[in-house]
């Protein structure tokens, strides 16, 4: 099921990039999409996941809001005459355990206020996050836990 969704998404991406939604072009996109997924079949592994469109949409909206807030806060920090920085790296204990969920969470963390994911520990249990204000890592961990991670779990489980 999800593999067909992948092919359809790739076909839509192809149509968007070539800028033409005519029928032959969409079919060509489907062919290209299937070919691409065929080429990466070994790296991709089995991809089984629930998919809740409503929750995914709410995750996307939360993300856009956080991105704007985040850029705004960086902007204010940068133009303030005395930059008050207390940067540091804290370890975030991951609850999600599948590769694509970790990737998604890491990407979302990077684009949200004050945090930037640096690395994942070898056993995939810890995500190392650089925070521009690391005076209260507990609060930052709680923010991620009740925000993005919960939304990801709701959307894909």
């Amino acid at each position, binding site marked *: 099921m999800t593999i067909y969704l992948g092919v359809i998404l790739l076909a839509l991406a192809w149509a968007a990039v070539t800028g033409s939604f005519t029928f032959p072009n969409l079919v060509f996109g489907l062919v290209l999409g299937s070919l691409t997924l065929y080429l990466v079949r070994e790296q991709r592994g089995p991809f089984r996941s629930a998919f809740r469109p409503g929750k995914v949409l709410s995750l996307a909206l939360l993300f856009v809001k956080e991105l704007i807030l985040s850029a705004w806060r960086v*902007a204010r920090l940068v133009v303030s005459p005395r930059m008050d920085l207390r940067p540091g790296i804290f370890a975030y204990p991951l609850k999600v355990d599948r590769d694509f969920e970790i990737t998604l969470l890491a990407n979302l963390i990077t684009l949200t206020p004050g945090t930037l994911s640096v690395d994942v520990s070898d056993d995939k249990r810890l995500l190392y996050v650089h925070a521009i204000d690391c005076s209260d890592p507990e609060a930052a961990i709680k923010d991620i836990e009740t925000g993005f991670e919960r939304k990801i779990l709701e959307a894909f489980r």
Partner: protein
Amino acid sequence: MIEPLLDYVAGILIVIGAIFALVASVGLLRLPDLYTRMHAASKAGTLGSCVMLIALAVQSQDLAISTRALAGVIFFLLTVPISSHLLAKAAHASGYRMWDKSVRDDIEGFVQKTKKITRN
């Protein structure tokens, strides 16, 4: 009627995007180390570029151009976090020190471990 309105919207979006891009470059100059600089580059820079692409999508009134601009926005959002993550990871793994006033580093053990591996 609608066309001048779209021009105004696009103009405002371009100015907003340009301001964020400017702030991102000021951040690159003012912030103290690579990690904090990546914050400015990845966030303010992405938002600036995306807002300007959206302005193009609004103003062009051509479906082919609009969809390409929006695809550009999505590719930005997918690729920027990965590149900044890899830069930060590479910097940390190669022993690039954090700024003196940094308050915490939980990966310390990780860095020592990788250094040991390269020495052997």
